[in-house]
Each structure stands twice: as structure tokens, then as C-alpha cells.
């Protein structure tokens, strides 16, 4: 227990503070009112002086060398000689968890830095008047700044792009894929009443469940092509089986097969329990033949990509913003060299000039970069780009933001993290200012 101050002798305050400017200031303010002071410059010195000097109160900084203030407080409270020493904690940390921990340990007052001189005196005087009065558990030193409460809510009319599936080739599952997700390709654009989907990989199952929540309406689904990883979720698209929904599916005929057959041939009794005739929604299949589509004020246009079969890139334009969806495209087919050497007039670029013009300056580009050069050597002509070649495309088309999708099923989260760093490094080397991120299942991007 601290001894009572002798007659005419002001109380002794121990100041534990490693920053000299602060300890000088605190001691100066206290001494100007007649208090006696002593200074400890680290946690260990503080414990020693608290024992030796029996101060009447301790001004304790939390972040100190050798022993931090929280540990000092614990030791003071567990030592019978110092357990009732009044403690004023001085901290720059305004975090609720830290404050709660301090209160649990037993403090008399808390001062949040930076502080005014008057605060030092107020806290010390309050502490000495009632040394046994600890801060109650419910009390927090953090107070909201007086103002009207600002509670914004999401504007439902704001356009957003959602990625429901970002994996290529085949779905994957397991903890190694948890952050990027394992569903195959699907994305949506929603704005007010409009809901437009792209591709029907396994990700469309989640997109369908989400679409049910807003009740029956007209949905539009644009298919880039009919490879398994882009159609395999179609039979699991719940709105197909709900009366009241109207669904228009857009795409191109294949080689020798109609577009409708490409989409529904996986729904025969041999492959799946439901068939085309089990749809309860009103479903249309519309062959595009290169024509753009207008849905209200939204315009969706298309051009071909370099991918086996008939494969489309889509560009959606709405309210002056554009986003392009190109999950499968082998840019610079067979090229394994440095992308710095690729110019707009390069022989390898010319065949994809229409695509380059189509993608020029979009706000958001969703495009793949599936392979490393080492992986690509055995997969030339499979319809997918290397990271370097995709970076060359980004340099030539200058999107504001590039979201990389169609992650290889062999690339787990750790590998994709490194791949993204490499992508950024290549882009920087090319002088591109495009922002690049990896898409993941559930990702939302406001346009």
C-alpha cells in the first residue's frame, strides 16, 4: 500500500514513459501543481520503482521497452505490495479490445494520447481522491465524437458484377482452393431490375439460388461457348424450374449442332433426371449470329475469341461503363517469348485485331491467364493464354481493371497468390497501369 503523504508533502507520482518529451511534459505539469514525481523509462524500471518508492499513483505508458505496460499492470496487480496502487494508463491505442483488457486487469483511469495538460491533472486528482475506484467493466474510455449518426446503406440501383465461378476446366474442392473457390465459370451483371448472366459453369447454381430471392422476372444468360466447364451448371440453374421466370439464353450454333441442342443435350435421362420438358420457366434460346442485344438501356455485343469451337467474348455497355467477359482466349497462340516484343502490328497480333479493338479501354476486363510458360508448351492450341501473353493483351487494350479468371484446376490458393505477383511484375515491366486482381467465387465489383 502506498504510504499517506507526510504533512505538507504532496503525493508522489511515478511516471513510466520511455519517450522523454512525454515524461518531461507529464512531470512538468504535475510538479507545477506541487506533486513530487519520479520517472521510469522502461517496464522493468517501473516495477522496481513502484516497489522501492511506494508512489501514490502511477502514470503508466502501455508500449515501453523491456516489459510492456500491460505486463507491468499484471505484475503490479499480482503483487500484494503493489496490487492497490492507483494506475492511470496512458496509451495511443484506442482499440476497444485493449481498453477492455486494461479494465479487466484493474485500472483507475485511462488517458488516450495525444492529450492536453489539463487532462493529466484531472486524471491524477480523480485517482488520488478515490484510489480504490477502478474503472467499471461497462465503462469505456472511448467515446464517439459528437455528431449525427451517418448510416449509409447500399444503393440497390448501383450496377455490380458478381463472379459466381472462376475456375476453368473442372470444378475443384478442398481447403487448398478455399479462397479462390472451385466452381467453374459464371458471372452476372445486375442493375436495378436487370439481371444478366454469363456462362453456366457450376457457379450458376449459386447464381440461380440468389436470383430466386428477388422473385420471378426476366433473366438473360449469354453463353460464350458450350465446353463442359461453361455449361455443366445449366441443369442446376434453379429458376429454370420455377413458374413465372422467363429466361432468354443467347449464344451461337456449334459445328453441326443447334445452340439449343448444345445447351440441353446434357439433359436427357441418361445424364440427368430432369429434361428440357421439365422446365417450368418460359425459356428461349436465341442464336445471336453476331448481332448485339439491347436489354433496356443495356447493350451487349460480341466478337470471336481464339478458342477451340465457336467461342464468344461479350462486352456489356451501360450508363457509360463497360465490362468485357472473356474467360477463354488463347492470345498469341504458340508464342513463348518476352511480351515486350509484341507490337500491335506483330504477325501474331493481327488475327486478333478485332478482339483488341473490341476490348479497347473497357472499365473492367474479365480475362483468363491460365498457364505459366512451362505449362503452356504442352498445351498450345488448347485455347488458353499464358500469363505473359495475357499481359501483352492487357497492354494493347488498356482496361482500367483486369480481373483474372478461369484458374487452372491444378493451381491452388498458394500457387495463385504467387501467380498474381508474377502477373503484376510482368505488367509493370510492360509499363501497363491497369490494376490487376484475381477473381474468386463470390467476388463483387461495382461498376
Amino acid at each position, binding site marked *: 500500500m502506498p504510504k499517506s503523504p507526510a504533512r505538507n508533502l504532496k503525493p508522489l507520482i511515478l511516471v513510466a514513459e520511455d519517450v*522523454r*518529451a512525454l515524461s*518531461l511534459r507529464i512531470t*512538468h505539469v504535475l510538479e507545477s501543481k506541487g506533486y513530487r514525481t519520479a520517472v521510469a523509462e522502461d517496464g522493468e524500471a517501473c516495477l522496481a520503482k513502484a516497489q522501492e518508492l511506494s508512489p501514490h499513483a502511477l502514470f503508466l505508458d502501455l*508500449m515501453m*521497452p523491456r516489459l510492456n505496460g500491460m505486463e507491468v499492470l499484471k505484475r503490479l496487480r499480482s503483487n500484494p505490495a503493489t496490487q492497490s496502487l492507483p494506475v492511470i494508463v496512458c496509451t495511443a491505442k484506442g482499440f476497444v479490445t485493449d481498453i477492455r483488457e486494461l479494465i479487466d486487469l484493474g485500472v483507475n483511469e485511462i488517458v488516450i494520447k495525444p492529450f492536453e495538460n489539463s487532462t493529466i491533472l484531472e486524471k491524477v486528482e480523480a485517482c488520488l481522491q478515490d484510489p480504490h475506484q477502478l474503472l467499471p467493466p461497462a465503462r469505456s474510455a472511448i467515446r464517439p465524437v459528437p455528431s449525427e449518426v451517418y448510416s449509409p446503406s447500399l444503393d440497390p440501383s448501383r450496377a455490380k458484377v458478381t463472379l459466381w465461378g472462376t475456375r476453368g476446366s473442372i470444378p475443384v474442392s478442398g481447403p487448398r482452393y478455399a479462397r479462390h473457390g472451385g466452381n467453374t465459370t459464371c458471372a452476372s451483371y445486375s442493375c436495378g431490375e436487370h439481371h444478366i448472366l454469363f456462362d453456366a459453369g457450376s457457379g450458376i447454381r449459386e447464381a440461380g439460388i440468389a436470383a430466386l430471392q428477388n422473385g420471378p422476372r426476366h433473366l438473360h444468360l449469354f453463353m460464350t461457348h458450350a465446353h463442359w466447364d461453361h455449361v455443366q451448371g445449366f441443369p442446376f440453374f434453379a429458376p429454370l424450374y420455377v413458374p413465372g421466370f422467363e429466361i432468354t439464353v443467347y449464344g451461337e450454333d456449334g459445328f453441326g449442332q443447334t445452340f439449343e441442342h448444345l445447351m440441353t443435350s446434357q439433359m436427357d435421362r441418361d445424364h440427368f433426371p430432369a429434361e428440357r420438358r421439365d422446365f417450368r420457366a418460359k425459356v428461349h434460346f436465341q442464336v445471336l449470329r453476331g448481332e448485339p442485344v439491347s436489354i433496356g438501356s443495356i447493350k451487349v455485343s460480341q466478337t470471336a475469341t481464339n478458342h477451340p469451337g465457336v467461342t464468344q467474348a461479350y462486352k456489356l455497355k451501360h450508363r457509360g461503363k463497360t465490362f468485357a467477359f472473356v474467360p477463354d482466349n488463347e492470345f498469341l497462340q504458340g508464342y513463348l517469348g518476352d511480351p515486350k516484343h509484341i507490337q500491335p502490328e506483330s504477325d501474331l497480333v493481327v488475327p486478333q485485331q478485332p478482339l483488341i479493338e473490341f476490348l479497347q479501354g473497357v472499365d473492367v476486363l474479365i480475362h483468363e491467364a491460365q498457364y505459366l510458360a512451362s505449362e503452356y508448351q504442352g498445351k498450345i492450341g488448347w485455347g488458353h493464354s499464358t500469363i505473359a501473353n495475357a499481359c501483352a493483351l492487357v497492354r494493347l487494350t488498356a482496361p482500367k481493371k483486369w480481373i483474372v479468371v478461369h484458374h487452372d484446376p491444378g493451381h491452388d490458393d498458394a500457387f495463385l497468390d504467387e501467380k498474381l505477383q508474377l502477373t503484376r511484375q510482368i505488367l509493370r515491366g510492360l509499363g501497363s497501369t491497369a490494376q490487376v486482381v484475381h477473381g474468386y467465387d463470390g467476388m463483387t465489383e461495382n461498376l
Partner: protein
Amino acid sequence: MAEPQAFPQAFDPEQFQNLLEDEELMRRLLEIFGEDSAKLLQRCTESLNREDYTALHEAAHALAGMLSNYAALPAYEASRKLMLHALSRELHLCRLTLAETCLEVNRLAVALAAFLRQL
């Protein structure tokens, strides 16, 4: 019309006087500034050279604590930014911010020396 300033003011004398309310205390703080700021910047530099981000965070925290007594917003904010970058462990950002902090502390030292001469 005043000319636009290339840098924000390193130090606000009026705020400094209001904060400390005492000339003797002001003099004491001004006297120790050079020595203490050099020590703390040295601690930051050595921690960063070792890529010891915990030590860097502690040193930057102490520096920010010190600067909070000098009504020196640019230097204080630079040191706070250094604390945050130390937590993020981004070497490149820490280097940039330490350089910025050194610059601001040097600017502040010049401004404080001028202020002390007028006291």
C-alpha cells in the same frame, strides 16, 4: 493573395504554445528535440535494415509519441504511417515512409530551431 506553399507547414507555433502552456516546458522540449529525434530515427533505420518489423513498429510508435508534443502534423502523420506500414511488413513501403519521416523530422528541426531563437 498568399503564394501556395510547396509543403504543408512543418510546425504550428500557436498550437505548440497552446498545447504546452508554459515557456520553460517549451524550452526544455525544444532543447531535447534534436538528440531524441535522432535516436528514434536511428532505431527505426536499424530495425528496418534488420527487417525487424516489430522493433520498427515500436520505434515508430515512440517517435510518434514524441512528435505528438510538438504540434507538428506532417512529421507526426509520417511517423504514424510508418507504424502502420511496419504492421503490414511491406519493406518497400516502410523504406519510402521512413525516408518521408526523416524528411519531415528534418524540416521540423529547422522550424523548431527558428522558433527557439525567437523565444
